């Protein structure tokens, strides 16, 4: 393609900013839409098992918060389906038929989710307890499925399969092969784990704050333990999935790996540099572990790591952004792992929360931390793919709309999303501040029930 005109360049920047805003906003709410049903069902299931009224109150409240987040996620998701066509006709035109299948299947999953959510939210007093619990299961399953379907489409943009190009035309389209591309298993696994961690740590942070403020009753402790255990259980799996993802990127997108680790020159036995900031072709201020990167990426200390010198400068992703986001994600992930291990050890040895207040401060930070890590991981995946919208097939600049005035849409959406954020936070606060019903003491104390931390 020839040089970009100024209108195209302005459109490219505005369209990318608009997608970053809409997706970055939606992804947080969508994570809760996927994870919250699981948490609410866990609480309800514990209620049916133990008869402890506190669990019923919890499930009920979490379902109220889920209703707000689901409604908001549904609208921000609808906007995205519009934006694909409005902003990226060069992607949807030629490749809509290749990557459209998972979106259509996601539509079915979303129907299932919406229908059963209606039953679950409005069925508390109309269904027998077990039937009510069962009505929530399709919500959790469909949430899992819709996240999986949508991420397969993103995986396809990283690893495009299921078509051939002949003289610039897309032929031999196989949407199933596109959906089941080699990057699908690793990316869907990471996204679903991230969704559960964002929900678990996010919800636990709210109760960590209540515990720190002195509300150390059984209800708040149970809520914290349930949400935190859920997130903590996902954390080691995420570290393992992260290792899998990094090795997969090393194989399929060497330019992205080189940007993540700021490897400018190809080398054998490449070191791992932790921290620091990439400035004009080298990392300043990092700690170097000899041969560490070769060991991590290929499980071989002598392996060759392709550097950015193998990639034409025009095809480099933005190295400082990708590298910084990657370091942030890894740092938060390991901090969460340490916190989860601390919690696990205290629970295993004494069946109680760690005594130290700093643990609760850590748990409070883990909530926003999980959101930040998830957004950083998404930046690594997406910014690291640039300048390609479909990796090594279609450039982002060639897919953007040529219609004038895209920038105004961006300004408008900034205002709309700011209002939406304020409304969502406000509505969630309202749900949180509803007075708690009287919770009777447990009739026959479960020996495994929580000992309240003091």
């Amino acid at each position, binding site marked *: 393609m020839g040089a970009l005109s100024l209108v195209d360049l302005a459109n490219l920047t505005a369209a990318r900013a608009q997608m970053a805003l809409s997706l970055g906003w939606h992804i947080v709410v969508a994570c809760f839409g996927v994870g919250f049903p699981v948490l609410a069902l866990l609480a309800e299931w514990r209620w049916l098992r133990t008869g402890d009224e506190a669990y019923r109150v919890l499930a009920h409240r979490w379902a*109220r918060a889920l*209703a*707000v987040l*689901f*409604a*908001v996620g*549904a*609208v*921000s*998701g*609808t*906007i995205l*389906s*519009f*934006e*694909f*066509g*409005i*902003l*990226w*006709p*060069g992607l*949807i*035109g*030629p*490749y*809509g*038929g290749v990557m*459209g*299948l998972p*979106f*259509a299947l*996601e*539509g079915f999953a*979303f*129907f299932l989710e*919406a*229908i059963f*959510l*209606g*039953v679950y*939210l*409005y069925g508390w007093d109309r269904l027998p307890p077990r039937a009510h619990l069962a009505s929530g299961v399709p919500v959790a399953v469909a949430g899992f499925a819709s996240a999986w379907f949508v991420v397969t489409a993103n995986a396809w943009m990283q690893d495009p399969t299921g078509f051939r190009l002949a003289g610039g035309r897309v032929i031999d389209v196989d*949407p199933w092969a596109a959906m089941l591309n080699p990057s699908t298993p690793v990316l869907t696994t990471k996204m679903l784990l991230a969704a559960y961690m964002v929900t678990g740590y996010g919800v636990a942070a709210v109760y960590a704050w209540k515990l720190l403020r002195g509300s150390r009753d059984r209800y708040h402790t149970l809520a914290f333990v349930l949400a935190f255990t859920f997130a903590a259980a996902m954390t080691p799996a995420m570290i393992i999935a992260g290792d899998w993802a990094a090795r997969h990127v090393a194989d399929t997108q060497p330019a992205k790996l080189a940007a993540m680790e700021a490897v400018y020159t190809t080398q054998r036995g490449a070191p791992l540099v932790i921290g620091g900031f990439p400035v004009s072709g080298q990392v300043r201020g990092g700690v170097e572990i000899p041969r560490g990167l070769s060991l991590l990426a290929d499980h071989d200390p002598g392996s060759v790591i392709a550097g950015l010198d193998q990639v034409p400068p025009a095809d480099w992703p933005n190295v400082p952004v990708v590298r910084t986001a990657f370091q942030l994600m890894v740092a938060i992930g390991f901090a969460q792992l340490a916190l989860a291990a601390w919690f696990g050890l205290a629970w295993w040895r004494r069946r109680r929360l760690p005594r130290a207040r700093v643990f609760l401060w850590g748990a409070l930070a883990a909530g926003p931390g999980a959101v930040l890590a998830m957004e950083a991981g998404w930046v690594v995946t997406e910014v690291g793919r640039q300048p390609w919208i479909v990796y090594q097939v279609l450039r982002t600049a060639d897919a953007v*709309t*040529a*219609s004038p005035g*895209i920038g105004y*849409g961006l300004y*408008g959406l900034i205002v*709309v999303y700011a209002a*939406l954020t304020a*409304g*969502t936070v*406000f*509505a969630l606060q*309202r*749900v949180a501040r509803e007075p708690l019903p009287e919770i009777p003491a447990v009739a026959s104390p479960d020996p495994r029930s929580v000992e309240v931390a003091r």
Partner: protein
Amino acid sequence: MTTAEVVLAIAWLAVTAYALFGGADFGAGMWDLLAGGARGGAAQRRLIEHVIGPVWEANHVWVIFVVVVLWTGFPTTFASVFSTMYLPLTAAAVGIILRGSGFAFRKVVDELPLRRLFGATFAAHP
């Protein structure tokens, strides 16, 4: 029937379903707006909320379904139409945001001014 005709038939059925079910909700939004004063219309507004609450989300999945069926089935047309008609479609998108979120937010508030604000955004749809 060719594949294109089958896809078109599915899209047509989905649009009809959206017009029916989503349309009922749009009507509810208008009714809500015109239900009368804050005190007099309160009972009607509660009823509207109660009636459409359980089916609201499912009714609005139809529009997403239509969009993804069109883009999968007729990608070239979809891309030209959406990139050309971006002004009305952006306006529709903003309307969808205001409606869906206004409806969800209003359910959790009790104060009159806030219910008015969210009620107005719920009724607002270009």
